[in-house]
């Protein structure tokens, strides 16, 4: 989409609030009497707390309470039913006992009447530990890995068939742990309205899932818990569950009998709200000399915590992306003494696609076939994994669109053959795929006497512009301008909606909004009689019928089509890089991302979402890496100065292109998801471009200058 068309289309419905600073995020409410809580983290990695000295903290000015495992009120949902065994695994239980399971684990929460006082007092809490030996390094622990499901193996056709192919290769690929690092710190304000009634403002991707989570932990009736999360400052998967700090704030509010605000520090954001797990992968891939895939073997071992099994199936991409008769995959996870990982944008698929799409590129060079050509040769016309037809797939068109836009024809097949002003130039591409899902959701549509349409559903918007998309759908159906539509969300008391994740919000909640509006319009048409008109004058009709408003609630779920078809969104990323041969500095010169994600409901926000995902992928490729000093089991780069996210100077203009053809089956809008595919495949595209520029294949992310330094000879030759 060009600069011009992208500024057209609807601006965000909540944009004004965001650009004026009026949008309030979770930490930005002030219930009367609110006080501040700050967590204290463990400084060892594994062992037990021998003693914990809270006296100094308790005596510090303004301190109301210090809660530890010793004095913590019992949390009902943590307790094991009499006669039953403590389950071997499960979500981490805050202040449950004296066990330390990972470095930085909360061991105390300090509550004081100002933030400054709480923070200082927290620094006064000192624990003595009995430290035990621990494991935090995946590379040393892959042997301990176990399959999260069955034996972790899946085979289609003949296992290891790639070995029999005339052209073949086997390589290992590693991604480090990555941090979601949304700009908004995770925050919660907890307020007990009565001993069994709770209101929270918390950062969550799903107000009702959080409501469920809190209900389970505190054994409260769900209806007694009100969860608010109208504005979420990014999450990318980090806010899909109730985390210990949320429990801590709720507990603290109970103890001090006041509303409590708890905002995680940036350092805690690296240890307390999950991360994309460090994963080792190996791919064996083989093809006939004319490029037909013979077999793929894809193994992966990712890290998890000792107390939870995190399973994100990174090898799934190898089963479904290309038509290949023989595919076998093995996935295992290795428990380490680190906090649990969690879903991060493009979960599993992003990890897997880095390996698969790098391997495919390597194969293309080995075959001397253009990487796009190789992918077209092996394009899957039906889902190779399930055998079902695709609900829609326009990947071939996407290749063409992207190749034209990046100037693929300028690429030289031989690495290190292009240069510009002393920089090596290279082109690379990578494919992303992600299941297109649709879940259950409800929405209420209310037409008010003054002609305002109110749409209500309990969805959250972590940034993609859900409200904007929903209003666009409503506006289209009802035939009224967007500025007459109000969209209510981020409130657990609204009609049911799932968490925002897995790129399924537009498909799921959009369908509910679609249905509610369709039904509402029909109600009007019934009131009008004679089949109504296509553009009813809603105000008139209400007036005539002496109605203050008319409202409809619709509940929808995925149709039977979901069983009949394999549904995926697809993306192709094209990258042009400049690599400085002597210093190894990599600059992305141009990026083109093409999405085959059905009909585009809201073009402007859709483009932003693709661009944003692409930038996440560039970060993954070039700079993001969580680093642990394994001698201490402790992070050494848990800050934004040391964990590098891309900054503006790293990012060129990014072209976001859409095939924009509706999917006939997933939902009435014809929309498929795109939050994940925006990122999936990008890291490989960058690595592939770096190879094309230099002839150096980087199989372990991120591609920092140290991995490329010292290639000045390339330019001279």
């Amino acid at each position: 989409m060009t600069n011009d068309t992208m500024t057209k289309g609807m601006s965000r419905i909540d944009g004004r609030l965001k650009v004026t600073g009026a949008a309030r995020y979770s930490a930005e409410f002030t219930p009367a009497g609110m006080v501040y809580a700050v967590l204290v983290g463990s400084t060892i990695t594994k062992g037990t707390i021998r003693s914990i000295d809270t006296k100094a903290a308790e005596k510090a000015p303004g301190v109301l309470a210090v809660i530890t495992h010793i004095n913590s009120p019992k949390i009902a949902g943590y307790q094991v039913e009499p006669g039953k065994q403590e389950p071997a695994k499960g979500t981490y239980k805050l202040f449950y006992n004296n066990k330390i399971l990972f470095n930085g684990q909360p061991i105390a929460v300090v509550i004081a009447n100002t933030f400054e006082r709480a923070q200082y007092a927290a620094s006064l809490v000192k624990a003595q530990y009995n430290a035990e030996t621990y494991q935090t390094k995946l590379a040393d622990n892959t042997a301990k890995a176990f399959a999260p499901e069955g034996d972790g193996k899946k085979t289609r056709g003949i296992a290891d068939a790639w070995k029999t192919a005339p052209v073949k290769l086997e390589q290992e690929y590693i991604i480090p742990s990555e941090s979601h690092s949304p700009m908004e710190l995770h925050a919660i304000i907890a307020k007990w309205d009565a001993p069994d009634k709770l209101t929270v403002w918390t950062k969550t991707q799903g107000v009702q899932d959080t409501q469920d989570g809190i209900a389970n932990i505190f054994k409260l009736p769900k209806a007694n818990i009100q969860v608010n999360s109208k504005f979420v400052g990014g999450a990318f998967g980090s806010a899909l569950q109730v985390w210990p700090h949320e429990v801590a704030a709720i507990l603290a509010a109970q103890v001090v009998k006041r509303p409590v605000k708890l905002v995680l520090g940036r350092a805690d954001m690296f240890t307390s709200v999950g991360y994309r797990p460090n994963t080792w992968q190996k791919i064996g891939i083989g093809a006939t000399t004319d490029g037909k895939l013979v077999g793929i073997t894809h193994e992966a071992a990712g890290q998890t915590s000792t107390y939870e099994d995190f399973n994100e199936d990174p090898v799934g991409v190898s089963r479904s992306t290309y038509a290949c008769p023989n595919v076998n995959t093995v996935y295992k996870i290795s428990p380490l003494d680190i906090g649990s990982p969690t879903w991060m944008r493009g979960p599993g698929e992003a990890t897997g696609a880095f390996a698969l799409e790098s391997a495919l590129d390597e194969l293309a060079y080995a075959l001397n076939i253009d990487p796009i050509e190789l992918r077209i040769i092996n394009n899957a016309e039906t889902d190779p994994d399930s055998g079902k037809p695709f609900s829609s797939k326009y990947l071939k068109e996407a290749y063409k669109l992207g190749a034209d836009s990046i100037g693929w024809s300028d690429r030289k097949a031989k690495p290190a053959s292009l240069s510009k002003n002393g920089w090596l130039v290279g082109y690379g591409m990578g494919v992303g795929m992600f299941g297109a899902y649709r879940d259950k959701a409800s929405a209420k549509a209310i037409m008010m006497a003054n002609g305002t349409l109110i749409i209500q559903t309990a969805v959250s918007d972590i940034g993609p512009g859900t409200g904007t998309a929903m209003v666009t759908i409503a506006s289209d159906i009802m035939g009224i301008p967007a500025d007459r539509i109000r969209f209510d969300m981020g409130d657990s008391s609204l009609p049911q909606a799932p968490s925002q994740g897995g790129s399924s919000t537009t498909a799921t909640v959009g369908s509910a909004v679609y249905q509610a509006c369709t039904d509402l319009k029909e109600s009007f048409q019934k009131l009008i009689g004679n089949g109504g008109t296509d553009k009813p004058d809603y105000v008139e009709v209400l007036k005539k019928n002496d109605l203050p408003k008319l409202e409809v609630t619709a509940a929808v779920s995925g149709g039977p089509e979901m069983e009949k078809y394999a549904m995926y969104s697809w993306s192709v990323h094209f990258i042009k890089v400049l690599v400085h041969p002597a210093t190894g500095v990599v600059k992305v010169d141009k990026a083109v991302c093409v999405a085959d994600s059905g009909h585009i409901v809201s073009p402007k926000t859709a483009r932003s979402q693709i661009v944003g995902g692409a930038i996440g992928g560039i970060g993954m490729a070039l700079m993001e890496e969580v680093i642990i000093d394994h001698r201490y089991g402790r992070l050494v780069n848990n800050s934004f100065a040391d964990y590098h996210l891309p900054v503006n100077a790293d990012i060129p203009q990014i072209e976001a292109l859409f095939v924009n053809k509706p999917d006939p089956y997933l939902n009435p809008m014809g929309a498929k998801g795109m939050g994940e595919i925006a990122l999936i495949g990008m890291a490989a595209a960058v690595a592939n471009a770096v190879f094309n520029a230099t002839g150096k294949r980087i199989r372990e992310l991120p591609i920092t200058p140290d991995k490329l330094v010292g290639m000045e000879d390339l330019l001279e030759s």
Partner: protein
Amino acid sequence: MEDEKDYALPGFDTEAKDNSRRNFLKQSTLLTAVALTPGTAIKAADMRLDEKIAEAFEKMPIKLEVNGVAHSLSVEPRATLLDILREQLDLTGTKKGCDHGQCGACTVHIDGHRVNSCLTLGVMASGKKITTIEGLAKGDELHPMQEAFLKHDGFQCGYCTPGQIMSAVACIREGHANSEMEIREYMSGNICRCGAYPNIVNAIQEVKEGAQAV
């Protein structure tokens, strides 16, 4: 924050014990400064005079002009301008993304210059003019940069946005918006995890090229 004494949660025992004040008073080394005998100190604590003493010895009076409004405040020297804006003045448009000068979410203008308010002590800003995102629009009329961010979709989640906009306005005023490359460099003190960078650059370029004063 309102007086805690007046606050009681419905359904709770209203006699929430608050020993901290007393403890503070008994502990505080600052008390030596007022030469209270321990006995008097405890008495003072029982009379809940401790907060008043803290007020005098731990806090300092400051004057801030924020978005044209004068505020006389009493703050602890360790309170940052960011926390004062957010927690005391309820100006939550200025965001906390890292609290260590590493993200730019807290960018405000002090006497017209963009700075990170998380590394600025409130006491150091006393007597200065502060502009936050809430002070950019003229009533209902958005600042051109706010309009441009809307038009170019220069944000997604919106959390880095106030900082980006404050920085963007300064970027033009400083004369650092003369090319796309220059804008990218001079906007690099504001991290956006949602990845709105190209749109932000486009918004700034449009404002820069437009006729409106920034």
